């Protein structure tokens, strides 16, 4: 269920990005793409680990994982967004 929801959100986000790039006739520097992918991977890991750890009944691991993987994901996302300006 949550995988499905995540897939829909990811798909919608990807389509919005594609739309923005085409309609605004924008281009992104090459290094933005790996940064974006890294942010996405870390964010995905943070969210997955949080819920999986809760399912494992490892609450402490869930929160620590959210901070350790989630914070870099947020920072990288902020950096990537700044390139969109």
């Amino acid at each position, binding site marked *: 269920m949550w995988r499905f929801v995540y897939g829909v959100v990811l798909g919608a986000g990807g389509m919005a990005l594609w739309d923005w790039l085409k309609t605004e006739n924008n281009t992104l520097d090459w290094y933005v793409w790996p940064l974006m992918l890294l942010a996405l991977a870390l964010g995905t890991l943070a969210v997955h680990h949080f819920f999986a*750890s809760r399912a494992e*009944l490892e*609450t*402490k*691991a869930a929160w620590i994982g959210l901070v350790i993987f989630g914070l870099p994901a947020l920072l990288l996302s902020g950096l990537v967004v700044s390139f969109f300006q």
Partner: protein
Amino acid sequence: MRHHSTVGKKERMNAMGLDREDTAEKFNDLDDVMASPAAEWKRPWWVREVAKPTMDIDWDVTERFDARKIQQVSWKKYVGEEKAKELGKRREEKVRQWMIDQKSGYSLRDRALDIAGAQAGSVGTSFLGSWAKTAEATKGEGEMFASDASRSRLTDPARPKPLSPEELGVPRYEGTPAENSRMIRSALRHFGATQVGYVELTERNRKLIYAEDAMDGKRIEFENVEKAYETNEKRVIPEKARWVIVFSIQMSEELIKRKSGLMPSALSAAATGAAYGQARNAIDQLQCFLHVLGYQGLMGTWFNGLGIAPAFAVLAGLGEIGRINRMISPEHGPLQRVFKVVTDLPLEPTKPIDAGIMNFCRTCKVCAEECPADCLSKETEPYWEPKGPWNNPGHKTWYEDSPTCRTWWAVSTAGCSTCFAVCAFSKKNLSVIHDLVKIAIAKNRIMPDKVNAFFAKMDGVFGYQDQRNIDDWWGMELPPRGTKNVKGTQLD
């Protein structure tokens, strides 16, 4: 003669979906189903099959071991009769008082759970199978199968003996070693096993079969006979029984982590007890299964069976030896108990594995540091010299001080599994981070010791080594046996 167990009727094949044209594979009978690649043991891709185990073995030094030397049997001898008696008396007093005090983790209900799992069950273990010494083969009119006889003889205290193919008047089962291996794995999983592997006995590794039985000291010998037998002095394994079925029963991670400070609780001990209880049934069911197929399945008179469990588990590739001097598997860590049945059913041996576990144990040391009895080695490198007569020499490992471990059980009143509970491989494996760490442990070649030490440190930071609240367990809604047991199966 190849004897297929055919499913002859087309409608039955239809019902099972076996003759559908659109299936990826065409199955003609059940043997084809078993021969399908889908029936293979699914290991993670980073687990490498190797020719030799990661633990060094010197077969010239290895000798057949007297099973009575293990601490579970000879602890009193190692610590002294007087001390053992005194510890036993104090243990009894504490057990009784803590029941009255309703001490958390040692109350009557905690103790009852431990005792019921370990000591109750339908049968005990025996050389030839529990049913071999009960009633004669039951073949009354309309009683072809034992289940028929059971239903009609509910008041008979003697359990009916299942019929062999010879007694049934049919040919015995015949299959290739590969087919037999798949069949046994499927049957054992049905009987409750977690992982299954096979070892073919050779002149060398036969040294891992005990020389004397743990309980009654009977000699265990190999003879060129058709059928296994036992006398007052010895139990005889036929030379043709050249294969060892090695399997494990998983333990509940949630239960084993419920210690009381440094002390193991009766509740945490119940994880081990239940695995042994379940194994008793699985072993007897396996022996019976082999008998009905027309083969022999041989077991010891005690859980330790006819041979050394961690050694056979390593040779069969269930896992690698770890600092705890027990088998640690990539999928379930040390949260398993290992059992063995010797058989004359030809089997395809499974290979030892290298998943970087033994190398990880070199730098981890968490189990040794957390051991409340300080009986595990903190040496970085494994060594050849045993700690005492309870160890069988001939392999390079971290030999443990078993009598000190067992003495701690007496002091704490409960079987200790702290080393199992805090192991970095003791996980439920739902988060992908565990797989990523295990891949790095198996494959990383850049400063592996430093990276492994970092993983061991982070394991503690994430709280995986923390003990759980004891009394919360009684209010939890856990799956059967407390395990989510699909890792390594087709449902994984």
